[in-house]
C-alpha cells in the first residue's frame, strides 16, 4: 500500500508540474508597461512553489514507499525536529524576504504611485451590467455627476446635466474604452449601484469599483488590439455577462476617433 501511494502521488505530482511547466494554459501576452514586473514575480513564485511542491510531495512519497518495507524499530528523523524547523524558517523566510522586496516595488509602481501628469484622463462608470466610459471632450473638463439624474432609459449613464453644466456639454460617453498605444491612461472608477471590478488580463490590471468612492487606476498599453474588460466582483445575475472592450489604437487613429466623437455629442 505504501508503494502504491508513492506511485500515485508521484504520477499526480509529475502530471501537475508538467502541465504548469509546459504552460498549456497560461497568461495571455502582456501588453502593458508595468506587466513585466508582475510576470517576473509570477515566474519567481511559480519556480519557488514548484520546487517546494515537488520536494514535499516526492519526500512524502519516498517515505511512504520506504515505510511499507521498513524493518525493525521506528527511526527518528536524523537530528530530530530541529533541522526541519530551522529549514522551514530559513528557507521560507528567505523566500518571503526576496518575494516581498521585489514584489512591493511591482505593486507600488501601479497602485502607490500617481498617474503621469500628462496621462489621458477617462472616467469609468460601472453599473448592473455594463461599463461606460467618459472622455472630457475639447474643453478638457468633466461635467459634474448627479446620481439623481442617472438613467439607463435616457442613456444618461453619468448623470450629467448639460442644460445647466457647461463642462458636461461636450463630455463623450461611449461603451468602448478606446485608448492610444504607448500613452499613459488615468482612469477614475465609479460604481452607481453595487460593487463591480475592472479586469483586463492582458493589461495585467484589476481594480474593484466601490460605490461611494472614486478610485484611480492607471496604466500604459504597449500593443494595439482589442481586449476584453470583464467584471470580477459579483454584482448580480448579469455578472457573467458584464463586459466591455478596450481598443488600443495608434495615436493618430485615436485623435481622429476623438474628434469624430466630439462632433457627435
Amino acid at each position, binding site marked *: 500500500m505504501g508503494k502504491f501511494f508513492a506511485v500515485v502521488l508521484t504520477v499526480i505530482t509529475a502530471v501537475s508540474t508538467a502541465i504548469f511547466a509546459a504552460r498549456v494554459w*497560461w497568461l495571455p501576452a502582456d501588453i502593458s508597461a508595468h506587466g513585466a514586473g508582475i510576470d517576473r514575480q*509570477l515566474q519567481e513564485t511559480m519556480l519557488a512553489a514548484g520546487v517546494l511542491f515537488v520536494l514535499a510531495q516526492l519526500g512524502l512519497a519516498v517515505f511512504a514507499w520506504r515505510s511499507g518495507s521498513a524493518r525493525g524499530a521506528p527511526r527518528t528523523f536524523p537530528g530530530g525536529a530541529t533541522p526541519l524547523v530551522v529549514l522551514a524558517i530559513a528557507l521560507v523566510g528567505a523566500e518571503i524576504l526576496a518575494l516581498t522586496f521585489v514584489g512591493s516595488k511591482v505593486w507600488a509602481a501601479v497602485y502607490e504611485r500617481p498617474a503621469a501628469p500628462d496621462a489621458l484622463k477617462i472616467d469609468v462608470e460601472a453599473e448592473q451590467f455594463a461599463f461606460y466610459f467618459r472622455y472630457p471632450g475639447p474643453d478638457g473638463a468633466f461635467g459634474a455627476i448627479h446620481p439623481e439624474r442617472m438613467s439607463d432609459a435616457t442613456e444618461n449613464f453619468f448623470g450629467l446635466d448639460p442644460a445647466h453644466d457647461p463642462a458636461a456639454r461636450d463630455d463623450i460617453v461611449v461603451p468602448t474604452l478606446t485608448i492610444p498605444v504607448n500613452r499613459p491612461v488615468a482612469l477614475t472608477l465609479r460604481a452607481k449601484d453595487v460593487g463591480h471590478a475592472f479586469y483586463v488580463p492582458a493589461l495585467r490590471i484589476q481594480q474593484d469599483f466601490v460605490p461611494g468612492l472614486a478610485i484611480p487606476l492607471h496604466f500604459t498599453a504597449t500593443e494595439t488590439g482589442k481586449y476584453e474588460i470583464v467584471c470580477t466582483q459579483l454584482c448580480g445575475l448579469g*455578472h457573467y455577462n458584464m463586459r466591455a472592450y478596450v481598443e488600443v489604437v495608434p495615436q493618430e487613429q485615436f485623435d481622429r476617433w476623438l474628434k469624430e466623437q466630439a462632433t457627435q455629442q
Partner: protein
Amino acid sequence: MQHDTAAPPAARHHHAPPRGFWRTHVFSVDHKVIGRQYLDLALVAVCTGMVLSWLMRLHLAWPDLPIPGLAKLSPNGAAGGVITPEYYLSLMTMHGTIMVFFVLTTAPFAGFGNYFLPIQVGAEDMAFPRINMLSFWVTLLAFLVLIASFFVADGPALSGWTAYAPLSAVGKDAGPGQGLGQTLWAVSIAIFCIAQLLGSLNFITTTLDLRTKGMSLARLPYSTWAWFITSVIGLVAFAVLLPACILLILDRVAGTSFFVPAGLVISDRLQPHAGGSPLLWQHLFWFFGHPEVYIAILPGFGIVSHILPVFARKPLLGPRAVIGSMIAIAFLSYTVWGHHMFLSGMNPFSAMLFSVPTLIITIPATIVTLLWIGTVYGAKLRFTTPALFCLGFISVFVSGGLSGFFLAQPSTDIYLHGTYFVVAHFHFVMGVAAMFGIFAATYFWFPKMFGRMMDERLGKWHFWLTFIGVYCVFMPMHYLGLAGNVRRYAAFTDDYLKPLIPVHRFITVAALFTGAAQLVFLYNLVRSRFRGAPAPANPWEATTLEWSTPSSPPPFDNFGGRPPAVAHGPDEYGVPGPTGDYVMQAAPAAGAGAVAGAGAD
C-alpha cells in the same frame, strides 16, 4: 469560599444518567450525543452542499441542460429545469455558506471536538452541559433558517458566502435573491455566531478547568490542543461577525446606512441611503473570515497530529514545535485579513502590511507539514484508511498551501484575484484537506463511537477514488486561473473564456465521479453502524484516554465513575509497554506496576 479539595474536579460535574427516550437521544446534555448530533447535521449539510456543487458544475459545463426535478424546487430559478444565471449564483452562495459554516466549522470542531475533548482530558462531560445542548439546537435553528431561504419567492441569497455590500444590503431592488433570501441568510449566520460562541465557551472552560489528575497541558493530546486553540480563535472571530450581521440586517430592514453609501441608482431608482461604507463590511467580514478558515483547518492539524503517530507507531516529531506553530497561526490569523482586499479600494499602502504577515504565516504551516512528513520517515506505517487520509491530508494541504503564496503577494494578486486560481486554493485547503481530516477522524473514531469497525476495504476504495478524484477536480482550476478565468460566473460567454470550456467539462466529470465515490463512504458509514464487525476496546492500539473508557461507546459519564489518572504523554509509541509497543496515558507511572490502562478491566 470552600474548595472541594478531596474530589477530583470531574466529580463536581457529575450529572445523573439520562432517563427516557427524549432525554437520552434527543434533548441530551451528554457531550457524546451532542457531538453525534452535530456530526449528523454536518452530514446532511455536506450532502446538500455537494449536490449544490454538482448542479453548479453541470450548469457550467452544459448551461442549457435541463435538470430533472429542479423546476419543482424553484419554478423561477430553474424553469424547465434549466438553471438561470441568478439561480446559479444562489446555488453558489448556498454551497459556500453551507459548506463553510455547517460542514467545516461543525464536523471537525463541534462534532468530533464535542465528542472527544472531554474524554481526552479525562472529564465526565463538558463544563456546561446544558449550554452545550443549547448550542447544538441553536446551530440547527440556524441551519433551518438558511434552508428556508430556498423556498422564498425571490430565491435564496446570491451575493456569495461573503455577502459584500451594497449588493447584500440594499434589498430587493438589487435583483432576485436579494429580497427575503438575503435577510434570512444574515439572520441564519447571526444565529450561528451565537451557537459558536456558546460552543467556544464550553471548549475553553473544559480544557482549562476539567482536566483530570495528571493531565497537564504538556500531556494534552494534539487534537485537544487543536480544538482548544480553534475555540479561542472562534471566540474572537464570531464575536465580530455577529455585530456585523446585525448591522447588515438593520441596513436591509430598518433603513440604516452602515454599509450603503449615498447616491446609489439601482434599476433607475435612487436609493434613500446615506453615506455608509461598503469597505466597512469587508473589513468586519474578513476580520472574521480569515480566522474562520483556520478554524476550518486547525482541527484537521490536530487530528492528523493525533492519528499519524498511532499508525506510524512512533511519537509525533517535534510536538512543541507543532503546538507552537498552531498557536502562532492562531495569533497571525488576526493580522492578515486585508489580503482578501488588496484590490478592494482600501488604501493601497496597507497592502504590504497585510501581505507580510500572510507570507509569514506560511512558516508555521511549513513547520507542521515538514514535521508530519518527518514523522512518516523511518516508520513502519500501518496503512489503514485513517492513516491513508492523514497522508492524503498532507499532500493536499501542501498543494493548497503553495497556491497561497501567489495570492499572498499583492503584485501577483493583481492578476489572479477573482479567478479560478483562488477557487483552486481555497478548495484544496478547505474543501479537500479539511474534509480529509474529517474522513480520517471518522474512520479512526468510529469504533469508539459505535463499538463497530468500518469496512477497511470500502474505506480504501473511498480513499483512492477520492484522492485521485480531488486532484482531477481542483488541480485544473489553477490552470484556468492562470488563463484569467474569472470566478463566480454562471456561464462563460467571453471570447477568451470560451476555449476553456472543455477544461470545465473535464472538471465537471471529475467532480461527479468524485462525488459518486462518496457514496462508498456513506454506504460504509450506514452499513457499519448496524453490521460492522464488533470493535475491540482499542483496535488501533492507541494511547489516549478515549481508548481507556470501559466500553465503546463510552458510558454516559465516560469513565464509569472512575476518572483516570494520567502519568504519560499522548503519543508514547515505539516504546515497550505491557501489551505491546505503546504505553497508555492512563497507565500507571513507570515502576508502579503493570496494569494496561485504568478502566480496562
